[in-house]
């Protein structure tokens, strides 16, 4: 009896967070997992607050693009076709639906491919991707390999320099103190046996 109660409690605890998450957060479904930059993407939203305007954004590690605004219907759903900016660099992104207060209400992962890569991927998979026609519409671009390094802006800033100089000074002072201690250490007598 006690065991069954414990099991019920455990099951309940295990299930509750997932259920709560589903009701509090909406869901975004994308027409494709991969899409070429400069092509259209279908975005469907569900389980969102009713008659609310959301901003769809494409967020990557280096760049964020606004895809447009959508408004949910009386069931809390929407369907939209958005244009993935041609300027978006290939990589892993997240499509986010932002509520009017800026909070994220739903998200979905998306891979943005270079137009040329998308065409190749479509050919490889026989056009089986969700929106193969979008990929085919992408402009084929040739990317040239180069051994030249990227010209990246590396700025440490005042706080960064303070940390760097602080760590350097700390290591230097500690090192010198240890060496001074080692040189001033008393001689050790030894006995063997």
């Amino acid at each position, binding site marked *: 009896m006690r065991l069954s109660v414990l099991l019920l409690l455990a099951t309940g605890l295990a299930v509750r967070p997932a259920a709560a998450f589903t009701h509090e957060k909406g869901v975004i479904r994308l027409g494709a997992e991969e899409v070429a930059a400069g092509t259209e993407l279908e975005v469907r939203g569900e389980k969102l607050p009713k008659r609310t305007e959301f901003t769809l954004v494409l967020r990557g590690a280096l760049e964020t693009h606004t895809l447009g605004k959508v408004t949910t219907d009386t069931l809390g759903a929407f369907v939209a076709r958005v244009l993935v900016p041609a300027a978006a660099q290939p990589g892993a992104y997240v499509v986010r639906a932002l509520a009017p207060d800026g909070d994220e209400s739903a998200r979905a992962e998306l891979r943005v491919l270079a137009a040329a890569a998308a065409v190749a991927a479509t050919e490889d998979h026989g056009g089986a991707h969700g929106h193969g026609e979008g990929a085919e519409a992408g402009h084929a671009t040739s990317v040239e390999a180069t051994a030249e390094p990227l010209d990246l802006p590396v700025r440490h800033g005042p706080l960064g320099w303070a940390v*760097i100089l602080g760590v*350097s000074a700390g290591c230097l002072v500690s090192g010198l103190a240890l060496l001074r201690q080692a040189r001033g*250490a008393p001689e050790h007598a030894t006995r063997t046996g």
Partner: protein
Amino acid sequence: MERTEVVEPDGRAGTGTAGAERILDRAGWAATRLALGALRYSIPASANRLPYMLGGFTFLGLVVLALTGVWLDQLYNPDPLAAHASVVYTVTRAPLGAWVRALHYWAACVVLVSVVLHLVHVFWRRSYVAPREVTWWSGVLLLVLVGALTFTGTVLRADQEGGEALAHAVAAAELLGPLGALLSPDFSPSTSLLARIHNAHVSLLPLLLGGTIALHFWLIRHLGINAPASGRAVFAEHVRRLLGYGLIGVAGLCLVAALLPPALGHRAVEGVEVTKPFWPFLWIYTLENTIGLWGMIVGPAVLLGFLIAVPLLDRGAERPAWLTALAAALLVALLGALAYGFVAPQMQHIGM
């Protein structure tokens, strides 16, 4: 083996103010609870000279690599499509990202130099003769692991140089057949090769490295440091000097990392070779230019075979002259190939 017990005079008498004594008391409290007294064992006094600290410097460099690596890994994305962007993010936007990455790079360079110098010194000192054969072999394994960590680290950049390094690894795997299965993209279709190499760089190889270092230290502790017998010293003093020099070195590295950030190439384009590898692999590049793709397998195999065989080839009272000559020839050839790699013409190796 001779067993030595250390008897110390009281070094605390007349150390100064009450505050300093309190610090010493607290240090003593911590030393007791951490059993640091175990470090006060006897070693040859000559082991306190710099050449005998090269292994210790290598270890300190590995500690710096581990600390900076943990930070970098918080920012790295092993997805092949996102990896390069995450490195660019680390360099350009993450707090202290560029500096930590540069520190990781320069610490790796220092480790590579110090581990080779340590190997040459140990060979010169004949510290591989009985009963230290396993100590030597564990050191050789450490060299291999450091090489593997360097290679995987290069690939993780996902820039043109990293992409070409990965392509070479795949080509080598194909040449090796079943032996190279782990480096084949087909080994695990559910994940990318880059993700598996990232996994090796941050978990598998460091675990193996940690275990091998523990074995290496255990053997050194119990078989002793092979240094000329010129009086005795205490190992704790050796550690103190090592940390002293090491921390001064880290201070220098911090500044070098801030002033000389390592380059990052453009996102890799597959199927072409326009770069040369990271400088420690340039000797292999020279071999590839000379004998083709097999160079990257034959070269390391010959070097590794020689290093493994050393304790078996030198079992007498003195090292055979031919072994010294062979080792010197190998070292000169390796350094020559490395130097030539810098000026060698850029060549396409894969698919030739």
